[in-house]
């Protein structure tokens, strides 16, 4: 059974290869034909989806066997003295889950875009980028080593850059794309450095080999070095995810990335690319486990802080996509701190469910924006539920899912994370997580009540979106409901994603309904509060704002982090750049020009000796003859041996 499956797993490389082929086809052949481009792209991603589903089924059937022996295929990619890198595919539960999620969301988004991008001038270009993104993302998931992962990691970054700036004529889109690339680049710096240290120390970047070395030699200081060395590497590697997954100091690019087309935001900046960081930490989990506890504690702290930080900002935002963006940040923080507190499977579970419901909500928001002709402010909306029933219902499912209301998907994953946090002795993180869950429920229901309920706005003439947009919504809504049931009856998602640090045995844990109840109550409280404020208007939102004007202003301005970075870039970096440029022009070049000036000056003086008079020249010539003769005749040292007078009897 496993053998046969293994044959299937050998074909995993086709999953990224098909979209890549479609990318090449669109770029070089079908570019001019809109219909053909989208058809090629969607067919490719659907084929990948089919293959991903087949592989996922194969993994589930293989059970424990594949957990212990991941199906790895490697082909040499680069082989030079001191550096040997393979390219390959790894099929294990983790990658199988990611393959399924990515290809599902990607194909939904591509189908959805048929309606959303209708009539756009850059249609073929859009599908071209989409295919490239799908290829890179799927390739990243399948990577067997850190460098391969990094290559695709950067490629998804490139696609993100291209797609954020898809409407390149918009200055805001252009700037957002630039910002996204630069910010993630800062994180990549650390990741690259971590990679280099890892290779220098262990001579490989292969995940399996690295894990084996670390697992077997962890006490061996000669091989590993001290624990602090591993810790440093863990911190460096973590910088990459901080950038890519928008964790606290480098989160600034993600909200701005909403300048891209909404399906892009759904795919890249909610469901797939941004979770790449989480995925990377999960892949490299052995490193974090073997590092000193501070590494994982750091991951947990950063994640938890991001979760609450972004959630608090989301409360004060008015733009529907920005609210969703901050919500994404907050949920990413959730996944990150889940990893930090040791809830590996919980984090992956949340990654999956979040992909479903966040993609759903983004696509729903896209549907709304499409219907309202590019209006994004939630206060300009209202009463959309009646006019757009499918969008409304599916969005409602999304809100329920993210708020952690059972039986929707978010409940199970969130609960698992919170339960593990408390169990593993992180009460503060647990509290933060719980409060974030409350905030999440609050701002999501705020969004929902304001935009979809309440009175209609007369100036809006919304209508339900075409089938190409609603069908993906329905499919994603379906997964947002049932996605969490994978954990039933117990917290057994870990069966799919088995990770055993240091040979621990997996223990099946029942859902602690008491803890679950607390988090459900937190969610319901949030929804209720939003209901009271925004639908019943029992408490006027304005009065709250009026009571805490400063707080509101700070929140609305996102704690001024952007301004701070801008100040650094403009004043510090720009200033240094100007100073150095000044130095280059006036000091370095000045020295050069100074030498030239001295040369020219001395030449100006010396040229006076060139009178142009032949007689003077002749005179100098003969005078020189006399002098030379004198030197020969009366001089000492080497020249005397050439003295003609010495041979002639000498005058000396």
């Amino acid at each position, binding site marked *: 059974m496993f053998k046969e499956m293994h044959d299937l797993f050998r074909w995993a490389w086709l999953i990224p290869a098909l979209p890549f082929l479609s990318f090449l086809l669109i770029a070089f052949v079908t570019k001019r034909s809109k219909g053909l481009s989208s058809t090629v792209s969607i067919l490719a991603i659907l084929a990948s989806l089919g293959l991903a589903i087949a592989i996922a089924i194969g993994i589930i059937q293989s059970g424990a066997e594949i957990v212990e022996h991941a199906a790895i295929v490697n082909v040499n990619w680069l082989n030079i003295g001191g550096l040997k890198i393979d390219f390959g595919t790894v099929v294990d539960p983790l990658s199988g889950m990611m393959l399924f999620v990515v290809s599902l969301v990607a194909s939904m988004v591509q189908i959805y875009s048929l309606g959303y991008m209708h009539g756009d001038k850059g249609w073929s270009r859009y599908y071209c980028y989409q295919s490239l993104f799908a290829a890179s993302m799927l390739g990243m998931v399948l990577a067997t080593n850190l460098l391969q992962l990094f290559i695709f990691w950067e490629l998804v970054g490139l696609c993100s850059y291209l797609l954020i700036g898809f409407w390149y004529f918009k200055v805001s889109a252009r700037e957002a794309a630039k910002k996204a690339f630069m910010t993630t680049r800062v994180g990549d710096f650390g990741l690259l450095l971590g990679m280099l240290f890892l290779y220098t120390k262990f001579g490989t970047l292969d995940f399996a080999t690295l894990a084996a070395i670390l697992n077997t030699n962890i006490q061996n200081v000669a091989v590993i070095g001290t624990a602090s060395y591993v810790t440093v590497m863990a911190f460096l590697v973590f910088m990459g995810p901080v950038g890519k997954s928008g964790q606290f100091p480098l989160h600034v690019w993600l909200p701005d990335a909403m300048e891209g087309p909404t399906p892009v935001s759904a795919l890249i900046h909610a469901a797939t690319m941004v979770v790449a960081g989480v995925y990377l930490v999960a892949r490299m989990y052995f490193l974090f486990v073997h590092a000193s506890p501070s590494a994982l504690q750091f991951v947990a702290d950063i994640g938890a802080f991001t979760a609450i930080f972004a959630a608090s900002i989301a409360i004060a935002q008015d733009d529907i996509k920005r609210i969703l963006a901050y919500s994404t940040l907050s949920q990413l923080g959730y996944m990150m701190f889940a990893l930090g507190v040791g809830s590996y499977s919980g984090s992956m579970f949340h990654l999956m469910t979040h992909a479903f419901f966040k993609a759903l909500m983004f696509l729903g928001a896209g549907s709304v924006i499409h219907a309202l002709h590019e209006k994004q402010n939630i206060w300009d909306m209202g009463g959309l539920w009646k006019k757009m029933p499918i969008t409304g219902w599916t969005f409602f499912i999304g809100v329920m899912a993210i708020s952690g209301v059972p039986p929707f998907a978010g409940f199970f994953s969130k609960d698992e994370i919170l339960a593990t946090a408390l169990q593993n002795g992180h009460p503060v993180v647990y509290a933060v997580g719980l409060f974030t869950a409350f905030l999440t429920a609050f701002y999501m229901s705020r969004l929902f009540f304001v935009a979809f309920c309440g009175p209609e706005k007369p100036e809006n003439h919304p209508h339900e979106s075409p089938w190409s947009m609603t069908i993906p919504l329905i499919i994603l809504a379906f997964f947002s409901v049932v996605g969490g049931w994978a954990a039933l009856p117990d917290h057994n998602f870990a069966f799919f994603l088995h990770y055993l640090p240091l040979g621990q045995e997996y223990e099946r844990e029942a859902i602690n309904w008491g803890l679950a109840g607390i988090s459900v109550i937190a969610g319901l409280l949030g929804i209720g509060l939003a209901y009271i404020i925004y639908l019943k208007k029992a408490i006027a939102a304005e009065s709250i704002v009026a009571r805490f004007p400063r707080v509101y202003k700070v929140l609305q301005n996102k704690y001024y982090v952007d301004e701070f970075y801008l100040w650094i870039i403009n004043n510090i970096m720009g200033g240094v750049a100007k100073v150095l440029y000044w130095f280059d022009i006036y000091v370095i070049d000045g020295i050069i020009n100074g030498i030239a000036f001295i040369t020219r000056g001395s030449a100006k003086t010396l*040229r006076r000796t*060139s*009178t*142009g*008079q*032949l*007689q003077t*020249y*002749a*005179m100098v010539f*003969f005078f020189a003859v006399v002098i030379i003769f004198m030197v020969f005749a009366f001089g000492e040292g080497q020249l005397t041996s050439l003295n003609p007078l010495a041979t002639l009897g000498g005058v000396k």
Partner: protein
Amino acid sequence: MNLSNLSVGLSTYLLVGAMLFSIGLYGVFAKRNIIAILMSIELMLNAVNINFVAFNRFVWNQKSGTNYILTGHVAALFVIVVAAAEVAVGLALVITIYRNRQSTNVDEFNWLKW
């Protein structure tokens, strides 16, 4: 003082040549008129010729073998030929320059200046 004891040897001729040469050199350095300079050059050439002939007379005369005989004379002859050619071309140049510049004054010829 017996004049016949004051014999004339090679070095005497060479001294005469050297004197003529130095006078010619002075002329080349000091004269303004380009024709005078040409004349001074002729003086120097003559000085050289004296040397040729003198060496031929005093040194090679002593040596046996016909190979050396009169080589100095031939050299002098060639010098005269070259001098004649030089004078012809040189004077033609002087006339050309004079036509352009209305002057034979070397002080005014400073085209070689930077």
